[in-house]
């Protein structure tokens, strides 16, 4: 978005329409990698791609509800024309050039409303782009919309957004708008935020790929916070290759984020297709999955066979002694840090959303003693050391992406998701099947790796993806 105010979703749907636009939605189904190949070979133009995505949004947004704010369609087309012109003039910026993408409505966008779905931020117009947004634009991507989330990103559901696989089902949260839009081909790619699994969970529920990078790998400058030491930003994409492309664009040091790493960003595509022959794949003991749905477990164990078929060695690993305390640490740290962030709002404004559990949570977090937070951080440090030891013996650690088919409720426990927010280790969720009860909802698996080894989990995810066809399936809308 280039400094002009976006349209509300309602205004867009009322029809500042695509006058004369070709209503062909076919191109919206392309992945980034596919679209980039076609743009590079002049088979399609960024304008055709944009028209296709906008037509798709115009037809489906009333049913999916993925966006809080959409850029004016004519402005989207202008930006696509600019991209087309730049490419024709030899100014090709790479595979994201001309790609219509979206960002969660926690990402600051210059001159465009950024609400985090909070009434408190209703009138907030950032004066700068979040670093992630700026990096996407620098790579040539066209940010066409701000995607939906629960109030302040709290919770595992995204009210107002519908799962493209079953419109009566929630898409999961908190980056549910991004996941639903990508699954419905209303965006070619997107980003979200992940504090307790909020990229991986909705990606899994919507049958797409969600990657939470290592803490410090992607800048959080200009991102509305939940919890400073647990928040991560990562891509949501149709394929593992697309996730790698998006991560490559948004990763890297940012002097405006003091937690940002100075490590060089590798080419995440370089090792993507090298396979997992003789890799050591760690998995949790079955006892830790006893509460998981049967469909979820079946999909998980079938996935492990796919890894074996690829030449990997699958074996159980023992979780650290602090594993069961890790979830509790994450909850305490999250709510106390959120309380600190919200203190200014608690004192000056009562207008949280109606019936808001957010206000009650941050008030409760305000009441915990400082010693509780410190103890949680000490146990966290111990857990991270122990987890490092576990990961020193394996290449990748694989779990189900979530416990049940369909999204958990707002208080659903997700220990295998939250431990990677607590530890900062990278983790990715990818499609791995469909449920029988409720029928037809996507299932996923999660792969985690050592810090800054996103290449490793991408390689494992790609190997699994290429051996299956779950990622090729699309919801009928």
């Amino acid at each position, binding site marked *: 978005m280039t400094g002009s105010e976006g349209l509300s979703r309602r205004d867009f749907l009322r029809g500042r329409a695509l006058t004369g636009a070709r209503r062909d939605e076919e191109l919206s189904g392309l992945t980034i990698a596919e679209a980039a190949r076609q743009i590079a070979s002049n088979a399609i133009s960024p304008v055709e791609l944009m028209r296709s995505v906008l037509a798709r949004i115009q037809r489906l947004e009333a049913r999916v509800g993925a966006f809080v704010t959409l850029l004016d369609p004519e402005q989207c087309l202008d930006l696509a024309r600019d991209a087309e012109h730049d490419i024709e003039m030899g100014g090709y910026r790479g595979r994201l050039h001309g790609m219509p993408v979206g960002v969660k409505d926690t990402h600051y966008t210059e001159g465009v409303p950024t609400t985090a779905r909070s009434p408190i931020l209703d009138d907030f117009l950032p004066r700068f782009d979040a670093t992630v947004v700026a990096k996407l634009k620098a790579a040539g991507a066209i940010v066409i919309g701000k995607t939906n989330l629960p109030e302040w990103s709290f919770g595992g559901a995204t009210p107002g957004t519908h799962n493209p696989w079953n419109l009566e089902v929630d898409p999961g949260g908190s980056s549910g708008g991004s996941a639903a839009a990508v699954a419905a081909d209303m965006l070619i790619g997107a980003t979200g935020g992940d504090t307790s699994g909020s990229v991986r969970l909705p990606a899994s529920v919507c049958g797409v790929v969600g990657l939470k990078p290592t803490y410090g790998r992607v800048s959080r400058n200009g991102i509305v916070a939940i919890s400073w030491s647990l928040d991560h930003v990562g891509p949501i994409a149709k394929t593992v290759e697309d996730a790698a492309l998006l991560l490559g664009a948004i990763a890297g040091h940012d002097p405006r984020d003091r937690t940002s790493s100075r490590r060089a960003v590798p080419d995440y595509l370089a090792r993507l297709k090298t396979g997992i022959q003789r890799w050591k794949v760690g998995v949790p003991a079955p006892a830790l999955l006893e509460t998981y749905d049967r469909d979820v477990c079946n999909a998980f164990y079938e996935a492990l066979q796919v890894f074996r078929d690829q030449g990997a060695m699958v074996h159980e690993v023992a979780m650290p002694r602090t594993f069961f305390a890790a979830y509790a640490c994450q909850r305490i740290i999250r709510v106390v840090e959120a309380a600190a962030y919200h203190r200014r709002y608690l004192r000056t404004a009562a207008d949280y959303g109606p019936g808001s559990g957010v206000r009650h949570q941050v008030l409760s977090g305000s009441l915990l003693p400082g010693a*509780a937070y410190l103890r949680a951080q*000490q*146990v966290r440090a111990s857990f991270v050391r122990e987890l490092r030891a576990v990961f020193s013996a394996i290449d990748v650690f694989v779990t189900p992406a979530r416990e049940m088919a369909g999204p958990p409720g707002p208080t659903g426990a997700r220990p295998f998701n939250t431990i990677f927010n607590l530890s900062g280790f990278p983790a990715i969720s990818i499609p791995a099947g469909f449920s029988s009860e409720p029928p037809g909802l996507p299932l996923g698996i999660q792969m985690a790796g050592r810090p800054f080894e996103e290449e490793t989990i991408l390689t494992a995810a790609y190997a699994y993806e290429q051996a299956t066809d779950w990622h090729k399936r699309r919801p009928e809308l």
Partner: protein
Amino acid sequence: MRGPGLERDRHELIRDLAQQAGVPVREDELPQVAAIYAELLLLLDTVESVQLDVEEESAVALDLFAWETVPEGPVAAREGDAP
């Protein structure tokens, strides 16, 4: 103590804690805040059940992601850490 008496005491505790913390908890919010606070105390019990050794307790690792610069092995003691 059970029933209304316990609830009254819990609400009184929340009022006191909120006053000490300087945050405004409205009367109609007391039940929800008290319920979440009780849940957090249970989580805190779980956290406090973890036995940390002296080294772990003395090294207040608020440089949370020191591991970024320590590729392998235990976190080294830093100059200035308490013995």
